[in-house]
């Protein structure tokens, strides 16, 4: 049983991690805590749903396409809104994403009605046994996706010129701009990538999870805690934080009681952050 729980926890954690990494990247580069991340995951789920309905694109196979679409959307969002608040005070930066979240959720309701939808017959359906452990295929696929995304981000940040420049900004903005780095463009790209991660997450989630306007809220909240737990600005930290949360959720849910599982997640966040005020792998200013 414990093995089953751990497996389930890690898989779930990877799914959360997928949502969290984009959030963490965005924070690391532009210091914005994106409370609209859950709503963007929801939008990606709808995009995935419509692509599946109209052009029979499987959500798993379509993940890169949806990530690309969301990348574009992220760039537009950056140009229209985020760019304008970057220089604003901390609170405005924080609340603008609350506003966006309220807007997106209700826009989805307005455009697509509150009905639940799900994608029938995605290629990753069903379960299989690995020894005595059940593994849900869609979650496994999402987890693998999550690891691929983590690897891509790692590669991008460390091996590409743009990625290195983005890292430079997240360490020291003013120095980076002195070095002739085009902040504007890089911010837009980084935000786009963050949202693309939300896109990938949404698409993989859509392969097994039902879709409705409010679906992203809880994912967004858990992801936020995962990012804070891992330490703001560290994508690896976000993934580790998310996996930790997944394990706490399944183990705690089983041994202590499902009604307490979210409370346990939040409690462990508070305990960890009190001991390590910058999260597990965090650095930089508050």
């Amino acid at each position, binding site marked *: 049983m414990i093995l089953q729980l751990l497996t389930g926890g890690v898989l779930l954690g990877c799914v959360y991690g997928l949502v969290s990494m984009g959030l963490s990247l965005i924070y690391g580069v532009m210091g914005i805590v994106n409370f609209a991340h859950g709503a963007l995951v929801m939008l990606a789920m709808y995009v995935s749903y419509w692509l599946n309905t109209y052009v029979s694109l499987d959500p798993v196979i379509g993940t890169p396409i949806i990530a690309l679409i969301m990348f574009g959307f992220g760039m537009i969002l950056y140009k229209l809104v985020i760019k304008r608040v970057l220089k604003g005070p901390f609170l405005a930066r924080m609340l603008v994403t609350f*506003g966006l979240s309220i807007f*997106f959720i209700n826009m989805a309701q307005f455009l697509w009605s509150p009905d639940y939808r799900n994608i029938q017959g995605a290629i990753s359906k069903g379960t299989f046994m690995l020894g005595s452990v059940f593994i849900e295929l869609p979650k496994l696929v999402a987890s693998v996706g999550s690891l691929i995304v983590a690897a891509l981000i790692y590669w991008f940040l460390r091996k590409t010129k743009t990625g290195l420049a983005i890292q430079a900004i997240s360490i020291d903005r003013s120095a980076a701009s002195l070095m002739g780095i085009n902040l504007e463009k890089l911010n837009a790209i980084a935000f786009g990538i963050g949202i693309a991660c939300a896109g990938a997450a949404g698409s993989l989630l859509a392969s097994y999870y039902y879709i409705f306007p409010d679906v992203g809220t809880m994912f967004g909240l858990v992801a936020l805690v995962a990012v804070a737990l891992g330490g703001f600005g560290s994508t690896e930290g976000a993934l580790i934080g998310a996996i930790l949360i997944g394990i706490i959720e399944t183990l705690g849910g089983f041994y202590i009681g499902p009604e307490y599982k979210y409370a346990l997640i939040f409690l462990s966040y508070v305990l960890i952050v009190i001991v390590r005020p910058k999260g597990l792998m965090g650095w930089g200013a508050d």
Partner: protein
Amino acid sequence: MANNKRFIYTLLIVLGIAIVLPLVLKARFQQHILVLVMLYAVLGEAWNIMAGYAGMVSIGQAAFFGIGAYVSTILFVKFQVNPWIGFIAAGLVTAAFATVIGLPFSRLRGRYFAIGTIALGQMIKVVFENWPWVGGATGMIIDMKKGSFWNFQFHASKTGYYYIALGMLVFVVVYIYIMERSKMGFYFKAIRENEDVATGLGVNKTKYKLLAIAISAGITGMCGTILAQYQLYVEPAYMFDHTISVTIALIAVFGGSGNIIGPILGSVILMPISELTRAWMGSSGSGIDLMIYGVFIVLMCVFEPDGLMGIARKAGRRLEARREKEVAA
């Protein structure tokens, strides 16, 4: 000093309007909006003490709000204690709770604190949901009594609740006005601006952070009692709702935080918009009302990040410039 006087006169005029308002707007829904405006103005001010002045941004005020609501309700339902005593007790218990919780929380900074408060709100909610003595998820119903000031219940008209909330607001505004000019206010702001500098200048940051949290929580808890008495029903899902926490922060920031007028302005504008758009468009179930609300917040953050007070200040400067021109001419 003349400015101060003018400021106080302005406040008195506004207070006068506020006192007369429910006599003009008599419809029940209008009065409902008025009650909410007042209640959220107080909640916004309470948030302001903690976040606007002392720099600890909370998105978990619902924890304090709900605890306050439950304290008075438990006292009334289980021990038949008059809600007015419950009202005071709510403030005290919530403040005490906040002090205990604040001790570890005061170590957290910036967004780690903010997310910590989100976590706190969710945890407290779960505790109450699973606490059979207070009705668990089913909540508690407050028996309807004869509507009177003494019973803290008003049925024929909502003006009673309105004036209680208004009274709270006056109290809180006067308190903040004095605080702003006193050692406590300066120390709060110093902590907000730079904790290291503050402690280097002899500010006991833990003590003052706890003070800010406790005062803010106490006021928020008392507001919880008002809402509990208003709807005569408490349930964890509503009293500890994350939306309450978000709305409180939105109102204060929308109006302009770290400022005595900001949260009031925010509540005066935002609450009617939220309630009226729902009344006009909500029955379609399309979500248009909340879309408008969302757009409003985004626009405000984008174009006037300092909130309504930012606009007011700019307009003031422009006015001043024009007057100077006139004088010159």
